[in-house]
């Protein structure tokens, strides 16, 4: 028990986590490059042309992974926020902070690619459909977190305030999701629905999965790299940081 706890706290200290994050980042970058290379190749050269949407459907290979990633990242941030509030560990707050821009980026990419898909398929860049709207709200929540964190100078305060915001926002997501049933929504017309995957070609599915894992690896790599920056920035007074930079400068 004692020793287990000890290990936990060892890696929750920024000083020990810093080099570890570096290794994870390097490793993840390799995986990212490999997966994305394979995934992109399959997206364009292996996956067959869709009988209904022609080549245009290939957007799905980034649209869907980006959508998933943006939602999943938010949940991970919520997890770290709880940890940060409960145990007051600096590292978990740093992880929340490190994930936010990437999550926002994927939310944006999801909306952007969705729009570039909607134009040829539905004839419009945008509809106020419930699913799309909830993605937009998700983007606002990310931006709200980033803005709030940036507006507070005392970083300890910023961490806690941000955590509260993230957790309050989490409650909001399912509410928005279920509101679809009451809300007078424009249905997604003659399009493939998210759940009937049976109509989907096997190679398409695999390609999409590879791209999704590629995005995961990307997010991990970026988050690790950003958390390193955050550690340096916040701990710049600490002896180990001074020594670390002293060598290289």
């Amino acid at each position, binding site marked *: 028990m004692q020793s287990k706890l000890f290990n936990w706290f060892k890696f929750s200290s920024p000083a020990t986590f810093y080099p570890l994050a570096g290794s994870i980042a390097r490793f993840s970058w390799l995986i990212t490059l490999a997966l994305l290379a394979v995934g992109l190749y399959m997206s364009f050269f292996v996956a067959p042309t869709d009988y209904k949407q022609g080549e245009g459907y290939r957007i799905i290979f980034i649209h869907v992974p980006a959508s998933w990633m943006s939602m999943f990242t938010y949940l991970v941030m919520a997890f770290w926020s709880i940890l940060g509030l409960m145990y007051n560990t600096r590292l978990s707050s740093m992880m929340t902070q490190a994930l936010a821009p990437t999550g926002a980026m994927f939310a944006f990419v999801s909306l952007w690619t969705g729009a570039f898909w909607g134009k040829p398929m539905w004839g419009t860049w945008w509809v106020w459909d419930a699913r799309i709207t909830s993605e937009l709200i998700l983007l606002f929540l990310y*931006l709200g977190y980033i803005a709030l964190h940036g507006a507070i100078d005392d970083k300890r305060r910023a961490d806690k305030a941000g955590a509260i915001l993230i957790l309050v926002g989490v409650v909001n997501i399912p509410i*928005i999701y279920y509101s679809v049933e009451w809300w007078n929504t424009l249905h997604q017309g003659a399009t493939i629905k998210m759940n009937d995957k049976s109509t989907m070609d096997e190679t398409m599915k695999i390609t999409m999965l590879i791209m999704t894992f590629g995005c995961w690896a990307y997010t991990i790599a970026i988050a690790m790299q950003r958390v390193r920056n955050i550690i340096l920035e916040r701990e710049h007074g600490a002896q180990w940081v001074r020594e670390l930079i002293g060598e290289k400068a």
Partner: protein
Amino acid sequence: MLETLLWIVRRDVTLAWRRRTDLFTTLIFFVIVIALFPLGIGPELDTLRLIAPGVMWVGALLASMLALEQLFSADHRDGSLEQLLLTPQPLGVIVLGKVIAHWLITGLPLVVLAPVLGLQYDMSAESLKVMVIALLLGTPTLSLLGAIGAALTLGLRTGGILVALLVLPLYIPVLIFGAGAVEATASGLGGQAHLSMLGAILLVALLATPIATSAALRISSE
């Protein structure tokens, strides 16, 4: 506990009464926003009737959001928030008291005035009735949720507008059910389900938000 709650409500209502204009300004902002639309969109009654519930609710959202600034920031600036934090009373009760007072001052007048404005948009009597009930259930939720945002942004120079960014996404469910109730009534479906949902959200907010707001206040006054 109840006594503390009453003292706080009394204090804030007294303060607002000293500044009677406060009582009217939220209201008048609401009226102006509602009045601006026909100017920007044109006066056709058919279009107006169509957009009435949406405009009404967006107006209520914005008015209640703007009023949030008055909730804690004056107390923060003059140091009386410090003193409130240091009284030997549960902070959640103090927060609840302040939110109740805030709603009485800014939310209630708006609910009272809404049907009059609805008439200008040619809404039917039935729709008006549902709208008032929806507002009565929805606006306290707006105050409760908004308090979290107000507490989080306390003392930040960006305050006023940052709070909009944080709070408006949280308001969206209320907007959807609130406007939905009126629309469902207008289209003959009945707004019952929407209203129950609004009531449920209010209950949850009543129980949960004072805790989040208290935590945010302690953090912000560090």
